[in-house]
């Protein structure tokens, strides 16, 4: 145990790992040394001087190196003449720290007095009042009076928008630079900085739009005063009125843990509403950070155009109806239809919803035809075998480990993973990127390999082949070097996305990367902790959809079906040909997504939704569902972590849980009684899906102590992110963890690669969609359709910056603004801010302005 250092803090001995700072060591034994500028996730700077303590070191004889002892045999300790900052001093053996002496008390009092010299006394209207580190520490350590002259207080601007999401109150800022350091150190977006000096210091931004970062909201959590506030919560409620409710991201595949702050209020008609969204600590998932989509998208839950009651088409019009009538009608119409019926679901629904969706169709309606309405990426069967192992934590990857990212722009698709991968690379992990274009992650990569759009499979195959060959190649080949770095790494994690890929190509890439994890024969990477494959799924519960058997060829738990049903494409064709006469759509919008032109020859269309989507507008029956904020359930993240979310607000109108609607119709079709609660549906899931065996709502709610300690009485330490009291979730084990897995077949997937300029679609975090369009605060951040071309291609196409062009995608014209992008390879064009389309198409510009 030579890595442990023992020191004494206020008479209590404590042993902590080498390199620990004095403040953290004190924290471990419940001694809260006050801090403002220090934050356990940031590099210490010692700017605010709040953490001054007395630090003494044992005296050693210079000649012998022996400890000098007092008469009573205790070691002699030499305290310096001045106080020292506990946040910058690393512990050492025998160190003695005093935090409760008169000099320390006086120092704390003086620092508080100094910090308050221009701080306004507007706590009664300040958003932070009630959960404010400055307020709390002033009460604990302040003098209560001041020697400062009130007339010398500086009056400064109190409503400075740093962009439309975050506001700055200059008077309240105590210049700790936590926000600036977070933006620079943690998320590499140095878009806010100090301006001027001394008392005139202020935080400024010159980015366009202002404070241009996907992580801006986190600065308001770690701000130790009310200087930075979010525009959605500003002056919205007082912290002590808020009831925290644990939840999970409804967008992102990493499964960020959230907390809703809810309040029942008169201005919302006596309803409980979500006032703000804050991170909930899960050091294995999102630590204490969330990106701005997760923070601001919640507004859709209480949008005025949410569906309130069931709608039934009568005389060509959708009219409101009762549940009983709607359920009877749907059950009656679907009863006995068998293979004439089909079902399509979204991958935002909970595991409970999805499990009952497939049960309803397969056992109730007795049709094998069901799929995700808009599947964009394959490989769930591969991740079930060689996916990242249970117990893994991307935060543990570093020196000696390797990560490969194929065909994914993590910064746009899942910023949480981008952050985790970036930090692993900064800790020394080898990062290999295979991409059709440069992305934000390239900066941190050790090997970057660009391929022409359409050549992702071929390039990945080259990487795999190079990894298999031990012999040195004559010429240094970048792919060989990268492959060697990957295969020789202690731990190997592989991410793959779907950028510019067809469904078949994503499947092959998943298998190729699966084989890469199996290359080392007897001791493969796959199956070991901190190793494995991660699919960058498009939604929060795409993983759950695989697990629950929302797939034409797999039942729950990846049980291969003897006779596979039709996939989504075949169902859409069947709708047009008349082969499918009834369609049940839950939580997806095929017509709005452009996958289905119209009702085709359908006799009966049921849509279960939050909003009257394009598909719902054409339906015979529309069933109002509850959003995830109104009920409980589970989502499974891309790291296969099953996580619980909890009901935060009352249901909108007469809406019901998706699983309940399906169970109630199923009851009419002979599927037995409707379960009382989601937890009972989950019990059924845990029986049907072997990997979920042993999980229940109680085991998913288990927590353990995490570091850093946050969210207790000492908000000043980690910010206002919430302590996790409602579950860290459970990762289910991939097959390779228990037994050897055979390598995967990787048939070639010939694709039509167009001549000329090849166009791929790139994801954007704020791509418009059903939910995000309802978040008013994000309106200005929504990605606009943009066409990136390099200069040579632009002159060939006769377009220039700012031109508006119509781009032909799958026969549809999409208007987009041209933006020159010098970093793109010649012959590669990228369309951003538009709904998903698969694969690579030839860029065809139809007219321009």
């Amino acid at each position, binding site marked *: 145990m030579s890595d442990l250092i023992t020191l004494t803090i206020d008479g209590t001995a404590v042993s902590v790992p080498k390199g620990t700072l004095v403040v953290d060591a004190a924290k471990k034994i419940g001694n809260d040394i006050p801090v403002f500028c220090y934050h356990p996730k940031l590099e210490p700077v010692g700017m605010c001087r709040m953490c001054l303590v007395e630090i003494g070191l044992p005296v050693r004889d210079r000649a012998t190196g022996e400890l000098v002892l007092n008469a009573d045999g205790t070691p002699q300790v030499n305290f310096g003449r001045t106080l020292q900052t506990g946040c910058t001093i690393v512990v050492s053996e025998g160190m003695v720290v005093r935090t409760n002496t008169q000099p320390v008390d006086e120092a704390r009092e003086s620092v508080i007095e100094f910090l308050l010299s221009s701080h306004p006394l507007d706590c009664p209207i300040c958003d932070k009042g009630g959960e404010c580190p400055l307020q709390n520490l002033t009460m604990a350590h302040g003098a209560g009076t001041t020697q400062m002259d009130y007339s010398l207080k500086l009056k400064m601007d109190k409503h400075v928008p740093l962009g439309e999401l975050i506001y700055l109150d200059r008077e309240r800022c105590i210049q700790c630079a936590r926000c600036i350091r977070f933006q620079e150190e943690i998320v590499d*977006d*140095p*878009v*806010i900085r100090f*301006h001027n*000096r001394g008392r005139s210091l202020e935080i*400024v931004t*010159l980015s366009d739009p202002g404070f241009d970062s996907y992580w801006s909201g986190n600065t308001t959590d770690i701000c130790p005063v009310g200087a930075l506030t979010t525009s959605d919560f500003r002056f919205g409620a007082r912290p002590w009125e808020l009831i925290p409710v644990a939840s999970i991201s409804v967008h992102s595949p990493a499964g960020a843990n959230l907390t809703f702050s809810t309040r029942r209020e008169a201005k919302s008609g006596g309803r409980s509403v979500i006032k703000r969204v804050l991170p909930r600590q899960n050091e294995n998932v999102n630590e204490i950070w969330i990106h701005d989509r997760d923070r601001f998208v919640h507004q859709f839950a209480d949008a005025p155009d949410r569906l309130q009651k069931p709608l039934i088409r009568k005389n060509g019009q959708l009219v409101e109806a009762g549940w009983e009538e709607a359920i009877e009608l749907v059950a009656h119409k679907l009863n006995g239809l068998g293979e004439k019926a089909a079902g399509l679901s979204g991958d935002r629904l909970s595991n409970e919803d999805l499990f009952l969706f497939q049960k309803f169709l397969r056992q109730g309606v007795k049709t094998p035809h069901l799929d995700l309405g808009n599947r964009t990426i394959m490989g769930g069967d591969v991740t079930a075998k060689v996916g990242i192992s249970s117990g893994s934590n991307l935060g543990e990857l570093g020196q000696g480990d390797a990560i490969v990212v194929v065909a994914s722009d993590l910064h746009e698709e899942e910023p949480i993973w981008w952050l985790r991968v970036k930090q692993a690379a900064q800790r020394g992990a080898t990062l290999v990127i295979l991409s059709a274009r440069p992305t934000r992650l390239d900066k941190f990569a050790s090997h970057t390999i660009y391929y022409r759009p359409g050549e992702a499979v071929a390039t990945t195959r080259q990487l795999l082949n190079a990894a298999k060959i031990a012999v040195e190649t004559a010429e240094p080949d970048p792919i060989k070097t990268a492959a060697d770095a990957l295969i020789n790494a202690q731990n190997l994690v592989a991410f793959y996305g779907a950028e510019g890929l067809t469904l078949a190509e994503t499947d092959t890439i998943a298998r190729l990367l699966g084989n890469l994890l199996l290359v080392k024969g007897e001791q493969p990477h796959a199956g070991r902790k901190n190793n494995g494959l991660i699919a960058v799924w498009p939604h929060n519960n795409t993983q759950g959809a695989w697990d629950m058997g929302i797939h034409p060829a797999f039942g729950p738990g990846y049980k291969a079906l003897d006779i596979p049903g039709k996939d989504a494409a075949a169902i859409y064709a069947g709708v047009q040909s008349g082969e499918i006469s009834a369609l049940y759509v839950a939580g997806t919008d095929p017509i709005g997504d452009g996958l289905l032109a119209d009702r085709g020859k359908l006799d009966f269309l049921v849509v279960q939704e939050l909003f009257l989507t394009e598909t719902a507008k054409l339906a015979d029956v529309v069933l109002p569902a509850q959003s995830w904020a109104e009920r409980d359930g589970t989502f499974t993240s891309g790291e296969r972590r099953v996580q619980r979310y909890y009901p935060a607000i009352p249901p909108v109108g007469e809406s019901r849980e998706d699983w309940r609607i399906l169970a109630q119709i199923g009851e009419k079709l002979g599927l037995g009684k409707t379960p009382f609660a989601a937890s009972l549906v989950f019990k059924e899931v845990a029986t049907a899906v072997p990997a979920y065996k042993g999980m229940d709502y109680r085991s998913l709610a288990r927590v353990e102590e995490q570091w850093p300690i946050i969210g207790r009485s000492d908000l000043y330490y980690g910010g206002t992110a919430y302590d996790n009291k409602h579950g860290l979730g459970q990762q289910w084990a991939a097959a390779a963890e228990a037994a050897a897995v055979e390598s995967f077949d990787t048939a070639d997937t010939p694709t039509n690669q167009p001549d000329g300029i090849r166009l791929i679609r790139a994801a954007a975090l704020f791509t418009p969609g059903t939910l995000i369009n309802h978040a008013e605060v994000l309106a200005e951040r929504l990605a606009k359709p943009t066409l990136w071309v390099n200069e040579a291609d632009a002159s060939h196409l006769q377009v220039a910056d700012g031109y508006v062009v119509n781009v032909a995608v799958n026969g549809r014209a999409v208007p987009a603004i041209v933006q020159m992008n010098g970093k793109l390879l010649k012959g590669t064009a990228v369309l951003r801010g538009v709904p998903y389309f698969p694969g690579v198409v030839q860029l065809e510009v139809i007219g321009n302005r």
Partner: protein
Amino acid sequence: MTFTEKYAAEIEGIIARFPHKKSAVLPLMHLAQHYYGYMSDDAMREVAAILDLDPTHILSLAGFYTLYYEEPVGKYVLEICNDLACALRGADQFVEMACNKLEVGVDETTADGLFTIKTVMCLAACDRAPMLQCNLKFEEHLDEAKFDALLARLREQAAAETIETSVVEKITAYAKSGNQVSVIGNR
């Protein structure tokens, strides 16, 4: 013509002096300020683009250093030191005299757009006070007569459109001197 185009060679020379591109930021800001008259937002964005920095970085530096002006200034910026040592040698009276003569206050620009008066902290010429810095050039041992002579000279130059400045010479000399700054130790 943008400053990037006008001073392409100088910019390249300055950047070449440093192991990290970012280190060239201060001289480039001087050059941009000289060309545009002050550090406008667009000038800051231009410097940021050259050095692959976020524009906010440039704004922050412009705010920290008093030699960068974020508001338009006159063709000649008269920066009079009135720090303690200079004040003891009559700097405050000198500032008052200068302001009265030009009929402007501190931080203001004359109507003809020629002169801006600023007061600054120590310029390290206490023994030659009262003194001022005009476009980075020191004028020392000043009194009213010498100040009048200085104004007359500057007005003459302005009329002849040969604005005296040492900024470009200093910066270009710096760019051409070619002394490499080496990295000491590792970050």
